[in-house]
């Protein structure tokens, strides 16, 4: 078999270089043509010695999610790694420190807890680091080198990645890290390799250099930049802060404006205001911030102002679990605010789509003259995938009906009726485009009105115009995968959970279950026609999602009037493909829909 499919978990304490080692591993693998997906866990505390975990899956085939078990577990700190020992699979490798700085108390040593099915490799990481760099700080590089040597990974590719990573620092930093890496690599060459973890050279023709490891938030930023974002207003909040940080670095170089405001309300207010002026404007936040922003979203809807909100969900409600993932802000994104304030909500399912939908969001906002929410989640924001983003961005730098599409023989009406319910939009100060803009209900010319007919007509207009977003250019709002035609089980999923869905579907099909999956990238308006066509083909439909209430299932059932089976739980961790597979099997046996909301592995 020539397939490589290895998952490496590195576990350490903040300051051990856990995440740095994981970064070098995944970037090296992506640079030589492997597909990779990675997700790092940080402590919620900003300071201290909390646990850091870096998980990277490396494959010669496309992969959609992390595996539940690691092939290799590296402990840089036994106190944190103890809880993860069982993450290593049977006959998987556990690499750990041989010579702790002080003898550890009985019961606190990884060596005591390594499972009988694991293959232990003790390594004097600290001593080796001190011998090669005069400092114990490069233990992470020693461990990484040992891993690379153990699995016969290409040494030179790691050297290149290490050099890139420390490019901005003194040359000595890179040299010392390479030396520590080599010490580990050479040590691995001297040990007998017992494990059955197989790393094989990338397939001939595998594209090298095209794909780079990119997080969801990095892809969002690149999408914004490629779409020509002009203005960004933000207030930091996990897990969206890095969007603000990266844009603050890159936008000014391109003539853009970035302002960190005093709070989320100011941020969204400024974003709506900038959108009104014709600026391509965005803000970013998480659930608690979105809750504060809903009033201004209503203004954007009412006044038909384009703007983009980049929202990454985390565990809630309230402050909730800031460093844990969840999909529980769907209701807020779709419905949040007063009145019938329908807006566009798009939800990427992988890192490439973070780029795609962030970029298209500006076009959609301008075309349909409305706020657009790009709904991510922490797992998607922070996970790395090897993706090749296009050199030639697919986004139009201007979109929507301008004042020129207004009949010059008629007086200008900002909210005039139209066949597609979209009115020509004049920018402030544009000659011939004088109009009134307000949060009050208004007539075609924009002046306030509380006429019953006007309110009904304008509500209809604001909803109808959004239907066009379901068929916008070549933007696919749903995609079906797996078996074609009639199937026993269909899985309908959104957001990051779609990766786990694909893995589960793949396994179900391998077991002989006829199975298909559909991703839904547009949540508002919901592409009901496509969803109903999919449901027509399915003996049963399962909706897996990371929230307690089954918010997407509720949305689908309310808009299609059809039942679905639910799998919804909130552990703060990504959904396990095995849980989805278990429900697929249950449904394939004709045992009917059920609700599984108590947590993973609760059913059966």
């Amino acid at each position, binding site marked *: 078999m020539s397939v490589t499919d290895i998952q490496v978990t590195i576990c350490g304490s903040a300051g051990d270089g856990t995440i740095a080692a994981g970064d070098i591993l995944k970037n090296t693998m992506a640079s030589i043509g492997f597909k990779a997906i990675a997700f790092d866990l940080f402590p919620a505390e900003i300071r201290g010695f909390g646990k850091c975990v870096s998980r990277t899956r490396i494959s010669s085939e496309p992969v959609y999610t992390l595996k539940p078990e690691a092939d290799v577990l590296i402990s840089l700190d036994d106190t944190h790694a103890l809880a993860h020992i069982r993450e290593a699979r*049977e*006959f998987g490798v556990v690499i750990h420190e*041989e*010579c*702790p700085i*002080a*003898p*550890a108390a*009985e019961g606190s*040593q990884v*060596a*005591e807890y*390594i*499972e*009988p*099915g694991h*293959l*232990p*490799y*003790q390594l004097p990481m600290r001593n080796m680091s001190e011998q090669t760099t005069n400092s114990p700080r490069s233990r992470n590089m020693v461990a990484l080198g040992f891993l690379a040597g153990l699995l016969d990974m290409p040494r030179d590719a790691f050297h290149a990645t290490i050099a890139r990573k420390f490019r901005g620092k003194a040359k000595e930093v890179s040299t010392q890290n390479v030396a520590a890496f080599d010490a580990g690599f050479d040590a691995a060459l001297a040990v*007998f390799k*017992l494990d059955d973890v197989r790393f094989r050279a990338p397939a001939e023709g595998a594209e090298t250099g095209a794909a780079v490891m990119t997080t969801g938030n990095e892809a969002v930023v690149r999408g914004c930049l490629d779409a020509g974002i002009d203005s960004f207003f933000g207030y930091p909040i996990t897990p969206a802060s890095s969007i603000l940080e990266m844009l603050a670095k890159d936008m000014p170089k391109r003539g853009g404006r970035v302002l960190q405001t005093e709070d989320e309300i100011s941020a969204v207010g400024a974003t709506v205001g900038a959108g009104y002026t014709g600026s391509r404007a965005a803000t970013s936040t998480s659930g608690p911030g979105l809750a504060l922003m809903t009033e201004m979203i209503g203004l954007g809807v009412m006044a038909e102002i384009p703007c983009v909100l980049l929202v990454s969900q985390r565990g809630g409600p309230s402050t909730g679990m800031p460093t844990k993932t969840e999909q529980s802000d769907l209701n807020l994104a779709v419905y949040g605010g007063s009145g019938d304030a329908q807006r566009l909500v798009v939800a990427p399912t992988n890192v490439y789509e973070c780029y795609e939908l962030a970029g298209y969001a500006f076009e959609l906002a301008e075309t349909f003259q409305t706020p657009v929410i790009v709904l991510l989640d922490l797992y998607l924001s922070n996970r790395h995938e090897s993706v090749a983003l296009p050199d030639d961005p697919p986004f139009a730098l201007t979109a929507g009906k301008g004042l020129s599409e207004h009949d010059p023989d008629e007086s200008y009406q900002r909210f005039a009726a139209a066949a597609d319910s979209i009115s020509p939009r004049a920018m402030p100060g544009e000659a011939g485009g004088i109009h009134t803009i307000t949060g009050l209900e208004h007539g075609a010319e924009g002046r306030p009105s509380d006429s019953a007919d006007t309110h009904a007509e304008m509500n209809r207009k604001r909803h109808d115009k959004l239907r066009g977003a379901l068929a916008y250019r070549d933007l696919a709002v749903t995609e079906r995968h797996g078996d074609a035609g009639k199937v026993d089980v269909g899985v309908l999923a959104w957001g990051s959970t779609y990766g786990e869905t694909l893995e589960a579907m793949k396994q179900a099909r391998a077991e002989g279950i006829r199975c298909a999956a559909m991703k839904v990238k547009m949540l508002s308006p919901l592409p009901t026609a496509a969803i109903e066509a999919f449901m027509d083909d399915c003996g049963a439909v399962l909706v897996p999602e990371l929230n307690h209430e089954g918010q997407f299932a509720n949305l689908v059932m309310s808009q299609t009037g059809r039942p679905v089976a639910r799998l919804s739980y909130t552990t703060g961790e990504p959904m396990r493909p095995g849980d989805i597979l278990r429900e697929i099997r249950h449904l394939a046996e004709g045992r009917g829909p059920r609700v599984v909301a108590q947590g993973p592995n609760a059913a059966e």
Partner: protein
Amino acid sequence: MNRTRYVLIGNGAAGNRAAELLRERDPDGVITIVSRGTLLQYRRDRLNDLFDGRTDWRDYLVNAPDFYTEKGIRVRRQSTVVKVDADAGSVVFANGEAIGFDKLLVATGGERYLPDDLLDFADQCHFFDSYEEAMTLRRALPDGGRVLILGGDMAAIGLARKLREHGHGVALVPHERSFRPHLVDEAAQGPYLAALEKMGIEVLAPGPIDGIEAADSGSGAKRVRFAGGGEATADIVLPAYGSVPAVDFMHGTGVEIERGILVGATQRSAKENVWAAGNACQLEPTEKGIHIYNRDLVLQMGEVAARDMIGDPLELFEPGYAQELALDADGGLQSIFFD
């Protein structure tokens, strides 16, 4: 509840048998097997099968990992014991870490004996005492390649038989420790060496080794120079002089050590809380001579030790094993160490 902590140093037949029996008789005890190696217990005596293509180490495991998990037996591997404090009930590892015990079984088996004249040349040699060493030897031996066995204990002679089956050339340099663990005086080795020659093994003249070096061919072959003159070349040089008890770390603990840890009929040492079994221990000689430990006997020792550790002593085995090497009617070699 006070759970008895059993520490069993050694991952061979005696230690594992003892662990299994301890678990049967003491469901609550904390049982830890300590091993220097990386693998769970495996059949070292079957490693000749590597040359039949059976190269996956999993095939040699005595028990699957689940066995240990289900029985709650910890196996702490890659852990070298450097010191035991029997009075304090503590085992100290090379990295300075320590674990406590209430009852200790030393079942470390034997470690390779290497004559002084070979110590400087060990890096030019291959060995066959573990799976890793055996695989390394197998990989280094070319098709039809030649192996030079120095000494020639019974494990190496078993390997020689297998190598001949597969068309390899085998030569042997006799030594006073040839045929270990059988005890055969050098003067009495003649008929047995003749039996080896009948097996197609070339028997060279004995003599101390003056040096081992890479042959000139660049093929990885080695040249062995003898002190008395002459030399031999081979792809693999395999010293095989039998083993000696691996009990150095037990010196100073209060147990009595001669050829191994001296034990009584229930495998208990001079220390109340320390037992020994297998090649690490020395049984009292019988009128037939000293004991030759084969696998069956080692398993029994582990069982007897465990029974005593749980307070249910049993003098199980018939301590009459003193079997000599023998020749069959056709002059072929007969040994309890052959399958």
